[in-house]
């Protein structure tokens, strides 16, 4: 299936290669570089590139292209999903998945890749099993290793691979038994000029951190399971029980994992917790434009809106922007024309605003597009969908 893997950085250098079958010359990446040149934006490189003898399937994460070389028919999603799993594993192991981190830990990376694929077919992709095989590097362990010459490779054999619950390692022991569940919800909405919502949908995930001794069997129930329109589970969740009783019943993996992701459909009306008042005008003939943006909270149930980040792609004619934020800082990149404003927390008494002028290219006619505005924000301890957890039992 997967023949080889090349890691390519933003400047187009191959900094790691791994082959699972016969060696494929790295010149095969030239086709990839061609496609990369043709694409205007880094994310526009087509994920699947056919070449005379191979097919290149790539994903872009953290400014690194993971380019897999395959030779024959294979479902492209299979490869893409696997590559993302590789990145997730690296992130899990090294905290970040950057070129520097990979280069520093090249041996661990190699050991991981060796275990994850056998002859190009995925072998062990569960993080619990991998961690049994190869221990993640920590500063302490690195130091101890250099002094004592001991290794990162697990001493005992990975028995998890053999068990009926392959995602959980055996013999887990904790003095403090604890389990945390984080519900993270994202709201994704398109709002038109006049402020009316065109589409809005809520995507949620439940991330868990379970540190329990032995083989715990957990159940988790919701107050209003009907809200969840579409769900996808970690393999540990028992399907049948969810179908029948809408209860999550599972033997969790050890450590951090994503238990469930769900979708709350747009049929349930979604209240967007912030609003934007905008007034962006360009006048014909003058080389000035006015920019006025105000943010405000809306239906937040008294919770504070935090980490607000506004970004907007201004028209090409804009040379520079001279703005005055009432709070936070803003930056304008004259090359990409990207305006971003780091607002921070919204204070309902004193609404944050960004006002000022934009200077336009002299002589150019008035840009007609209305720039689109993206807003990211965080609200702690509130689920927009109104989804609540009823209880959990061991």
């Amino acid at each position, binding site marked *: 299936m997967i023949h080889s893997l090349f890691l390519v950085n933003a400047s187009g250098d191959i900094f790691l290669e791994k082959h699972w079958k016969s060696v494929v010359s790295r010149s095969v990446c030239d086709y990839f570089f061609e496609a990369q040149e043709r694409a205007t934006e880094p994310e526009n490189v087509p994920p*699947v590139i056919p070449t005379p003898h191979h097919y290149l399937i790539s994903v872009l994460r953290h400014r690194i292209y993971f380019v897999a070389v395959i030779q024959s028919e294979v479902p492209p999603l299979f490869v893409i999903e*696997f590559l993302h799993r590789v990145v997730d594993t690296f992130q899990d192991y090294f905290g970040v998945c950057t070129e520097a981190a990979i280069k520093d830990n090249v041996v661990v990376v190699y050991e991981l890749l060796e275990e994850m694929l056998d002859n190009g077919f995925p072998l062990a992709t569960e993080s619990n099993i991998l961690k049994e095989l190869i221990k993640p590097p920590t500063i302490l362990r690195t130091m101890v290793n250099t002094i004592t010459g001991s290794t990162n490779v697990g001493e005992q054999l990975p028995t998890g*691979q053999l068990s009926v619950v392959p995602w959980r390692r055996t013999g887990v022991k904790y003095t403090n038994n604890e389990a945390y569940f984080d519900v993270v919800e994202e709201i994704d909405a398109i709002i038109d000029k006049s402020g009316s919502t065109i589409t809005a949908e809520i995507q949620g995930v439940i991330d868990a951190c379970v540190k329990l001794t032995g083989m715990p069997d957990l159940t988790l129930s919701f107050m209003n399971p009907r809200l969840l*329109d579409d769900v996808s589970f970690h393999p540990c969740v028992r399907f049948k029980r969810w179908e029948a009783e809408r209860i999550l019943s599972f033997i969790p993996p050890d450590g951090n994992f994503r238990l469930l*992701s769900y979708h709350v459909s747009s049929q349930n009306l979604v209240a967007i917790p912030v609003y934007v008042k905008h007034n962006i005008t360009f006048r014909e003939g003058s080389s000035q434009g006015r920019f006025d943006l105000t943010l405000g909270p809306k239906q937040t149930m008294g919770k504070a809106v935090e980490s607000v980040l506004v970004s907007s792609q201004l028209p090409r004619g804009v040379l520079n922007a001279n703005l005055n934020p009432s709070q936070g800082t803003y930056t304008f990149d004259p090359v990409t024309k990207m305006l971003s404003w780091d607002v921070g927390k919204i204070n309902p008494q004193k609404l944050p605003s960004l006002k000022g002028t934009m200077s336009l290219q002299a002589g150019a006619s008035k840009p007609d597009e209305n720039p689109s505005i993206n807003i990211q924000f965080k609200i702690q301890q509130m689920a927009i969908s109104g989804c609540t957890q009823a209880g959990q039992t061991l």
Partner: protein
Amino acid sequence: MFVASVIIVFCLFLSAEKEAKTNYQMLDSNKDSLKLEAMKRIVAMIARGKNASDLFPAVVKNVACKNIEVKKLVYVYLVRYAEEQQDLALLSISTFQRGLKDPNQLIRASALRVLSSIRVTIIVPIMMLAIKEAASDMSPYVRKTAAHAIPKLYSLDPEQKDQLIEVIEKLLADKTTLVAGSVVMAFEEVCPERIDLIHKNYRKLCNLLIDVEEWGQVVIINMLTRYARTQTFYGSDEDEDEDEEEKEKKAETPAMAKRKPYVMDPDHRLLLRNTKPLLQSRNAAVVMAVAQLYFHLAPKAEVGVIAKALVRLLRSHSEVQYVVLQNVATMTIKRRGMFEPYLKSFYIRSTDPTQIKVLKLEVLTNLANETNISTILREFQTYIKSMDKDFVAATIQAIGRCATNIGEVRDTCLNGLVQLLSNRDELVVAESVVVIKKLLQMQPEKHSDIIKHMAKLTDNIQVPMARASILWLIGEYCEHVPKIAPDVLRKMAKSFTNEEDIVKLQIINLAAKLYLTNSKQTKLLTQYVLNLAKYDQNYDIRDRARFIRQLIVPTEKSGALSKYAKKLFLALKPAPVLESPFKDRDHFQLGSLSHLLNAKAGGYQELPDWPEAAPDPSVRNVEVKDSVRAVGTVTYRDTGALWDLQGPKKKCSFHANVYQPSLYNWALVSMTLHLVLCLQTIAPSSALKNYELLHRITGEGLSVEYCFSRQPFSPDANMVAVQMQFTNNATADTKNLHIEDVKLQSGMRVKEFSEIELLPAGETATAVMGIDFCDSTQAANFQLCTHTRKFFVSIQPPVGELMRPVFLTENEFKKEQGQLMGMNEITEKLTLDMKCRNEHTIVQRVTTAANLSRVPCGSDKECRFAGRTVSSSSLVLVTVATKEEGAAQLTVNCEKMVIGTMLVKDILLALTQ
């Protein structure tokens, strides 16, 4: 300057040299930490794509290193370079062969994994044997590894296909989830055409599916889709390939409503039911696999369930979106209704990459119908204002397609597009012109004002494609704009020389058409244009000018064609059909690479058509006895516990005794030669002879066979390994199989196999025990006990099994032989059997009779073999010298005279029969 750079290069060269040297030294050192450091450096080199193959000999001898990390890194290295250094790679094989016999399943599995990854053709027989053995291993994990090894061997030597299919067939019958995914993957790579192998396993695979690991699920589902297409009959959807609208019409007619109800094949239903929950998988590939299965197999009413899951995938990474949208685009052409409720999920976000935007547009266009077109068009209007010009161009194309597909909005779209003609962005205008041209072709008479408007644009617009389109339009419909057309031609004639080629061609066309309809005004202009074209640099244009001049300008010589010139040029042309590029892509299996590329990829298996008549479903019936058998009969008893054995085993390993010294001599080249030869001999002798220990009748259902596996017995190197195979033919389980009451001659020792706790009815188990025969052929007597009975049994070894092969060079052989003369030498004359007169057969027969290895020899008249007795390590040397007409002389040199005499007898028998 030049000198300086030379020096620098030289220094670099030196330092590289030095580094290589230190790596060498470190690998040779006794300290594991130094070895590890060196291996890490080497692996880092490999990762960067640097060549590290020259360190091969130094690395490969660490293959038996005790440190696990060193060992693993050596494996990485070995697998990477074995192909380039075939001879040296053979040095490592015996380590893995030993690993294959390890009592611990994980060690067996990893040995098989590495062994099968070494791409050296010479070990194909060894791999084949190892795979066959592992396929009947007790541990499902080892069997899984065997399944993984099958495609590796197949790619190394496709001639093994038939044998491999046998193994696949055996593994397909496996009932554990661990094996299922891997073996189906092997099936897909080796013999996807052998659909008959699936019959018996179909229902089992369907039932296991949900518990298989996610990657295996993808492979199984894709395979089952193909299988179900050939095997299950699907009658109700004869109209499957028809257009949806037609279908609706048909549904209205009462005749259709009376269609006889169709009962779905239960096997078909089973597959659909068991795959459905997997739509909830977190793995996008699994979801896609189920979606394509439903699309290709499910009745129309049920396909809808996949829409929601596919829409969910749109929240994933952009690469996943890209693939999913491609598939959704194909699906929406045939099953539009399915995705209509999710229309808004395909709305474009400003943060989407362009390629995603374009695909979403495609889907939106496919979804457009009379009811939702107004919302879609409103969306499109917003998109036109985007700053992403490629996307805007795609949007305009999409509007054009909506307009052709849905008659009601054609005028609205046209008006909208005409407004775009006054857009400031030239690309937008150009794209609109091209689309308008296509739309106008449908009903030109109504829109002469638009044509006029476009004629005016020629003054400003510069994009060649747009200019060409306008000119074509004016030429085609010059009767609708009789006043403007000649004027446009006048302007064009003026700028002719500066135009692009496609524009020039259209100018010529325009001139010709005007000449035919309005020759009074345009005669001179046409002549002028044709003259310019005559001297153009492009031969297409020169050709066209010449051709058109002959056709339209009447001369005395002009042929019959010019009479029809008007008909030729102004024939009514059919309007172009604007079609989705995804139309008819569904003849590829959805979700496949071939579908994505719209071209057949290597190894793609066609999705077969539904069979004409229902095939016999009884082929999938399985005898009850089989299906009742429990799934997880295998116990994980041996897990981990035997890891402790690792330590002592390593110390007395035969590898350390024999290989290492010669390795340090660096007689590597000759070393390798020995190995190659020994491998050749080991391979045929692998057909080990089985002896019966306990017959089925006397054993009351339990039968036991044993063979001398000729593998070093790892817990004690002085013992002969005896591999026993227990088969329970009885109807009841046998428990607590173990050995008791061992009766031995003095000095002999036995290492019992660990107790087999449970041997279910019909199952087979193997165990290895070690016996130290003290270099005698005395029998070892003992009792074999089950939980109910005891059986007296005895094992008597043939003399040939009391030795193990050693590797000697020709010189060493001669030297040793010189020391074993006189009493220690036994010579016999013999006449070789007719079939046994070539060297190969001699070698084969001798090595079958005795566990010896071949010693290289300069003369082809002599075959030499060497070994040592297992217990006392006395040297055994055998020489077979052939003469004319089958006469031969056999010489055995051995300090143990009894052994020597018996060996002579055995070998004589082997060679003369």
